[in-house]
């Protein structure tokens, strides 16, 4: 590609995550596929995060890039490349780096000061070193630590964890400043800068984690940005946002719909897998209802729009889930609750100490009061909870579970009820060949090989049930829209498709889908397909039951289909539940929901912890608390265990922090808390908390064991 030919100002960068890009060979395949497109600039890869950064002309739709990578045989998903997000992370990195550099210099001065305490350093040098430390600390306090002040002031819920951090920095600095100017008393510049640096580095890693997990957040981003609209009999490309009710749109083959409407042509074939989780395509007649977010899998057709992009059923479902998610965010997290108790107690103790010493020995009053504030070490407290949580998240990632929010981790131990969606969640999203009925003298093996040779040319989801390893090749293959495939295999004319196409009378009912095959127009075979349970569904359900969880299956399908699955697993079920009604029976604070379709969005949002399966769409993934990166359902057991282990470690960490304070604060109140003791106490308690949290990095996970054995 010639980058020079592209004007620089029209280039934008799109980030695409490719889950199955493992090696350099994969990335070169991706870049080769991309170079076939017009208007591609620099392509960069990050193989660790499995992301590709593509510079391209702004006229090129990111959806086109995704489709091109898909065509090369990968599973790409669009990552939100908002400029603001990377700025935040970079900004934190800059502040942390500068803070660390300055801290090192302050430490150097402090060591000289501490050494001076035990030898006979001249007072003038002690003062000079104090002033030097003061100058070095000013940028840390006035620039590096600003994010903490901002968050503390903006916090809507009153006292958040940023409040004690901001207080510790400001108070520590002001005390030191006053003492430096007075020329007597201790200075704490080293403790202040070290504290600010540790917290900034922690924040930076936090932000990086969040950036990496941010996928498509906006509903409209998950839909095509342009559509083909008929204006005065002429087809024109217009932005999707400009589509209004009454417009006539031309939907080409494979295109995703951006609006609700009705079909104007004779027939259409719609893929609604993202909507219902149902992998079979739906055939529509003239006037049939079309939904935004679904894909056209048949021939191109005209549609009349009944609702523009903001009034669609997809938008309505999304609005419900967005509302519920906003309410979830309002719940205060554990750290905030701890801070809300801790800060008032510390502040009143400090006041008490000052008042006490004013009455006993006024010269000591200010120093003792401030020492209480410094020594009470919000550092261990501020680290106690996040360190444990991030260790748990890291461990879960290794086991194939991507947990997006630490808040969900806090809610996990309270879960008592687990709700599952049926299609695509408990059952395997891929269809399975359950039974072959031969109608001539050929062996079933031969029949399957013939079917496989033809079906590898079909993109219909049911075609995936047939093995492509039969070793036969088909010629003059012809796709029959909505029906099946026709072609020559070893000189014989083979047709495979629906019973109607092959002139069969359908006999299968209930759980099976029927596919028929004719050879030279003679009936040859009947294939029965079904969606089996996931391989480890039964074992997982048994395990969860033994652990005492209440299990419910919620499905939009009708009763018989649900009953069969629920009975085979031995769990309760509710059939024919509308998407909006799925969350009706949830017990607040105790429900985990596992789902995969857009129809699960309201339930996913309402549930206290929501889990999306591997095979779902980006929109669903972006709305769930956790995403399974494995097709094993057993990952849910690991998730629940991790929640419990994490809570245990947090309790231990908080107990330690409180114990430390019970010893340190009385000492400070008694007037014995020199600067060096405060610095040592602070770092030791932080290290203890971190080491304890790191135990979570080794917690046992069922997923890792099976993978090692398998």
């Amino acid at each position, binding site marked *: 590609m010639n980058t020079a030919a592209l004007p620089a100002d029209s280039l934008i960068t799109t980030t695409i995550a490719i889950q199955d890009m493992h090696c350099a060979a994969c990335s070169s395949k991706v870049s080769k596929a991309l*170079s076939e497109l017009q208007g591609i600039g620099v*392509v960069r890869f990050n193989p660790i*995060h499995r992301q590709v950064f593509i510079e391209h002309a702004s006229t090129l739709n990111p959806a086109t890039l995704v489709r091109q990578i898909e065509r090369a045989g990968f599973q790409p998903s669009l990552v939100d490349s908002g400029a603001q997000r990377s700025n935040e992370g*970079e900004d934190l990195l800059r502040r942390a780096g500068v803070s660390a550099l300055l801290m090192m210099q302050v430490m150097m001065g402090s060591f000289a000061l501490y050494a001076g305490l035990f030898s006979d350093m001249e007072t003038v040098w002690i003062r000079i070193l104090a002033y030097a430390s003061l100058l070095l600390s000013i940028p840390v306090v006035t620039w590096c630590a600003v994010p903490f002040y901002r968050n503390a002031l903006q916090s809507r819920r009153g006292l958040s964890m940023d409040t004690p951090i901001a207080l510790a920095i400001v108070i520590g600095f002001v005390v030191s400043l006053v003492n430096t100017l007075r020329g007597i008393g201790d200075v704490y510049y080293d403790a202040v800068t070290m504290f600010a640096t540790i917290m900034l580095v922690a924040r930076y890693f936090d932000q990086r984690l969040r950036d990496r997990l941010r996928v498509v957040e906006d509903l409209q981003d998950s839909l095509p940005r342009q559509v083909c609209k008929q204006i005065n009999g002429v087809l024109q490309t217009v932005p999707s946002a400009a589509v209004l009710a009454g417009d006539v749109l031309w939907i080409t083959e494979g295109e995703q719909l951006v609006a609700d409407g009705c079909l104007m042509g004779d027939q259409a074939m719609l893929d609604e897998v993202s909507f219902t989780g149902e992998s079979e395509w739906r055939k529509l007649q003239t006037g049939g209802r079309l939904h935004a977010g679904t894909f056209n899998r048949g021939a191109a057709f005209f549609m009349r729009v009944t609702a523009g992009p903001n009034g669609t059923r997809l938008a309505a479902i999304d609005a419900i889930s967005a509302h519920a998610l906003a309410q979830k965010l309002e719940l205060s997290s554990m750290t905030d609750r701890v801070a809300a108790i801790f800060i008032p107690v510390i502040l009143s103790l400090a006041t008490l100490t000052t008042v006490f010493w004013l009455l006993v020995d006024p010269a000591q009053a200010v120093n003792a009061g401030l020492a209480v504030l410094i020594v009470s070490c919000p550092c261990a407290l501020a680290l106690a909870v996040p360190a444990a949580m991030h260790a748990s998240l890291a461990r879960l990632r290794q086991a194939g579970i991507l947990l997006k929010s630490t808040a969900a981790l806090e809610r996990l131990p309270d879960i008592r009820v687990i709700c599952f969606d049926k299609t695509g969640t408990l059952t395997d999203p891929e269809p399975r060949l359950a039974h072959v009925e031969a109608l001539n003298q050929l062996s079933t093996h031969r029949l399957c090989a013939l079917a496989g040779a033809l079906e590898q040319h079909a993109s219909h989801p049911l075609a995936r049930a047939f093995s492509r390893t039969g070793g036969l090749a088909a010629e003059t293959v012809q796709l029959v829209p909505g029906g099946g495939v026709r072609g020559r295999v070893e000189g014989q004319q083979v047709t495979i498709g629906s019973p109607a196409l092959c002139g069969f009378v359908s006999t299968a009912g209930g759980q099976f889908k029927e596919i028929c095959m004719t050879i030279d127009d003679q009936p040859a075979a009947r294939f029965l397909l079904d969606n089996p349970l996931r391989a480890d569904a039964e074992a997982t359900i048994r395990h969860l039951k033994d652990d005492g969880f209440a299990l419910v299956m919620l499905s939009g399908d009708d009763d018989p289909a649900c009953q069969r699955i629920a009975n085979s697993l031995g769990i309760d079920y509710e059939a024919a539940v509308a998407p909006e009604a799925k969350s009706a029976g949830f017990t607040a604070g105790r429900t985990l929901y596992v789902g995969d379709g857009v129809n699960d969005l309201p339930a996913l949002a309402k549930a206290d912890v929501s889990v999306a399966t591997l095979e779902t769409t980006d929109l669903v993934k972006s709305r769930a608390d956790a995403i399974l990166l494995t097709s094993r359902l057993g990952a849910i057991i690991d998730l629940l265990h991790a929640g419990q282990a994490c809570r245990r470690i947090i309790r231990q960490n908080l107990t330690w922090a409180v114990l430390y304070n019970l010893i340190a604060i009385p000492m400070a109140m008694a007037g014995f808390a020199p600067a060096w003791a405060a610095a040592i106490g602070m770092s030791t308690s932080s290290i203890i908390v971190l080491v304890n949290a790191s135990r979570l990095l080794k917690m046992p996970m069922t997923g890792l064991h099976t993978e090692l054995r398998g």
Partner: protein
Amino acid sequence: MDLMLWLILATFALTGIAALAFIWASRRGQFNNLDRHGLDILDEDIQKSGGNDEHLR
């Protein structure tokens, strides 16, 4: 003893230079993609363009 004062001033200057260099490097995007370069060695058909270490295709 004057020497100590000069050393303290030198500390200030060096710290300032280091901080500015760090900010400059991070603005240039040096820390955006730290995992990439270690893996470049595995990639065979990459043409390096002079001066700039981006991959051009």
